[in-house]
């Protein structure tokens, strides 16, 4: 079992072409697809940490400020992410409430937690369950996009509920923060290099 890096090779992240590793990786481009290539994403841990801190800060306004306000027969009603889920639950659509709860509350929160855990474990050169950590990473990367569902719901409602004095919907100040959390955590997952998990395992062998 030898990694490409230890064999003096490096693989393109986009087209998987193997290249002999030169003395310096600066401005090295893949001969097949032309993207910049690196043995490991440069400053992966620093970038991911910075993005995680930014999303953690934005997570607070995203959940406390209203993401949407609905005006129905003159009575305004502001919804936060959580109250939107509770509304669905009260109306008896618990399967949908569960999906939205998972997509907009569980996923962003676990994403922040698992990515932080991964960053810390890599920084400490941990040997703890590398396979499970890689799986967690893949899952994080896969499910992150589903948190966008709330933003799209707002977009659809704003477009549809346009009945003048009768009923209107507006996007609230929390929605931009929430969108930013989703985007930033997606970038954070992208900048994390899962190969670092396995580097720690090999350095001891």
């Amino acid at each position, binding site marked *: *079992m030898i990694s490409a890096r230890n064999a003096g090779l490096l693989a393109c992240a986009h*087209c998987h072409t193997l290249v002999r590793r030169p003395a310096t990786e600066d401005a090295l481009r893949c001969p097949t697809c032309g993207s910049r290539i690196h043995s490991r994403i440069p400053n992966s841990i620093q970038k991911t940490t910075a993005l995680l801190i930014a999303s953690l800060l934005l997570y607070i306004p995203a959940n406390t400020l209203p993401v949407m306000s609905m005006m129905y027969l003159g009575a305004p009603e502001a919804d936060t992410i959580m109250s939107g889920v509770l509304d669905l639950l009260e109306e008896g659509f618990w399967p949908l409430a569960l999906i939205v709860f998972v997509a907009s509350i569980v996923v962003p929160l676990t994403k922040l937690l698992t990515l932080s855990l991964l960053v810390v474990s890599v920084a400490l050169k941990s040997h703890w369950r590398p396979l499970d950590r*890689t799986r967690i990473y893949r899952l994080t990367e896969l499910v992150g996009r589903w948190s966008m569902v709330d933003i799209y719901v707002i*977009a*659809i409602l*704003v477009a549809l*509920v346009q009945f003048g004095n009768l009923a209107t919907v507006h996007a609230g100040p929390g929605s931009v923060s929430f969108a930013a959390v989703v985007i930033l955590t997606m970038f954070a997952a992208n900048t994390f290099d899962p190969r670092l998990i396995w580097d720690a395992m090999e350095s001891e062998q």
Partner: protein
Amino acid sequence: MHDQELIACHDCDLLQRLPDLRTGQKARCLRCNATLGLRPKDSLNRSLSLTITALVLFVLANTFPFLSLTLQGQLVESTLISGALSLLEAGNPWLSSLVLLTTLIFPLMNLCALLYVLLSLRFNYGAERVRSLYRLITYARPWAMLEVMLLAALVAGVKLGDYATVITGFALYCFIALILILAAIDNTLDPRLIWRYVKQQEQL
């Protein structure tokens, strides 16, 4: 077809030989179980026909009414793009552009680029653009989120059902079909096929 190829796993960097895959087989990393390669049946022709289908559905899904709402005799119709436009009118340029990019521009750009790439492979013409176009697709793909939009339509419909009558439009059914076709493209398209073509072209 070709020799057992030496590859490095994209998730754990383990160096290994990719076995010659039979049709329908998938190769997984020995160490971390990541999918390393697949060999779908008749990949090029099937992906091409699916991509054309997807583009037709994409146009239909964006021209006809998506969801409509009636409240006390008033009717409001919306298409897929209405959400982004209404957000812009209401003074939310950031949300508007985010919705526009992830549900219209990136998905459409990806489909058009993929159509060019597959046509180029099929008819061996215009190969010089394949490299940059397919690279563009690999970069933009995570940001096309049509399937999430479908879930959002379901949630929005249920939320409004209490107050008003929700009418599902023709575009919604096209949209559902589009999501299924896009998932099918993911399973029939072999990226290695395209990169191998790019490599061959450069060696000529």
